[in-house]
């Protein structure tokens, strides 16, 4: 847009939802299914300063490393933009999760029911920090391999946390998962008043 424009009359607002889950579970696919832009990637450089000396010991022979995060964008209103951020693939980059979750509405934990343990870390993380989250079981090829309640039991997910089915490739399916998350976050916010 090249037209001369002064400052927007209404301060635009950004909100954020985090998409977490194990490596290769389909986080970027999910983001791409609803994003109005092709998912972009931003990189953060991790140094001793950003993680503390203890954590750096987990990165042998390196004083810095790069963490990449994919993200997408949905303009909900002219002045209200929702960003979807995928967590870095490797769970050890927890400092980046702190950054991602700061101010976020909540998180969608995408689960491959064949590899449930891959999402343990994410579930623990959001529970400990009291971040609203939903568990979305990715329906690969549209096939449900496990019942939601079996997954709830396996992951010890509290009853108030929604567990939903989701096809990360399908826009409507992903949209519904996001709606479920925001509803859940809203219920929790109202309950906390």
């Amino acid at each position, binding site marked *: 847009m090249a037209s001369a*424009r002064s400052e*927007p009359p209404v301060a635009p607002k*950004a909100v954020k939802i985090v998409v977490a889950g194990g490596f290769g579970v389909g986080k970027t696919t999910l983001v791409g299914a609803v994003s109005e832009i092709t998912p972009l990637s*931003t990189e*953060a450089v991790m140094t001793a300063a950003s993680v503390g000396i203890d954590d750096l010991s987990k990165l042998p022979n*390196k004083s810095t490393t790069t963490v990449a995060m994919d993200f997408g964008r949905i303009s909900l209103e002219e002045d209200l933009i929702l960003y979807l951020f995928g967590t870095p693939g490797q769970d050890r980059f927890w400092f980046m999760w702190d950054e991602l979750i700061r101010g976020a509405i909540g998180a969608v934990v995408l689960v491959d029911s064949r590899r449930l343990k891959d999402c343990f870390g994410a579930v623990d993380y959001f529970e400990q920090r009291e971040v609203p989250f939903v568990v979305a079981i990715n329906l690969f090829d549209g096939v449900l391999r496990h019942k939601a309640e079996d997954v709830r039991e396996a992951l010890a997910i509290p009853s108030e946390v929604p567990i939903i089915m989701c096809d990360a490739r399908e826009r409507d399916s992903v949209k519904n998962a996001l709606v479920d998350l925001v509803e859940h976050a809203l219920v929790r916010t109202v309950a906390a008043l």
Partner: protein
Amino acid sequence: MRGEDGHQRTYGPIVRPYTITGGRTRTTLQELELETLVSTTSLGQVELPRLNMERREIAALCRDILSVAEVSARLSVTLGVARVLVGDMAEEGLVQVHRPASQNNSSDIALLERVLYGLRAL
């Protein structure tokens, strides 16, 4: 912190990222959130032809509102560099930054309802 890079493997751009920012890694607007929105001001539009490379690119890109994360991705610079550049430009009045709404209080309910409405309408 940057002195112990005897074993550092270098990859990516040859230019050290912090060369772009003149060696500064901090700005008074540090800790800009990933989703902080950036828009070029009228001053930024006027000054654009006189700005150097990255700053000019930011001023041009942010005629449309973009987040700090998008600035980082579109310029192919790290998040830290994008933050410093945007923070400096904000201090000089070339761009305006819009920090995200804080969460977890009653005013959030109205915002969450707007988000919900917007998502359902997609």
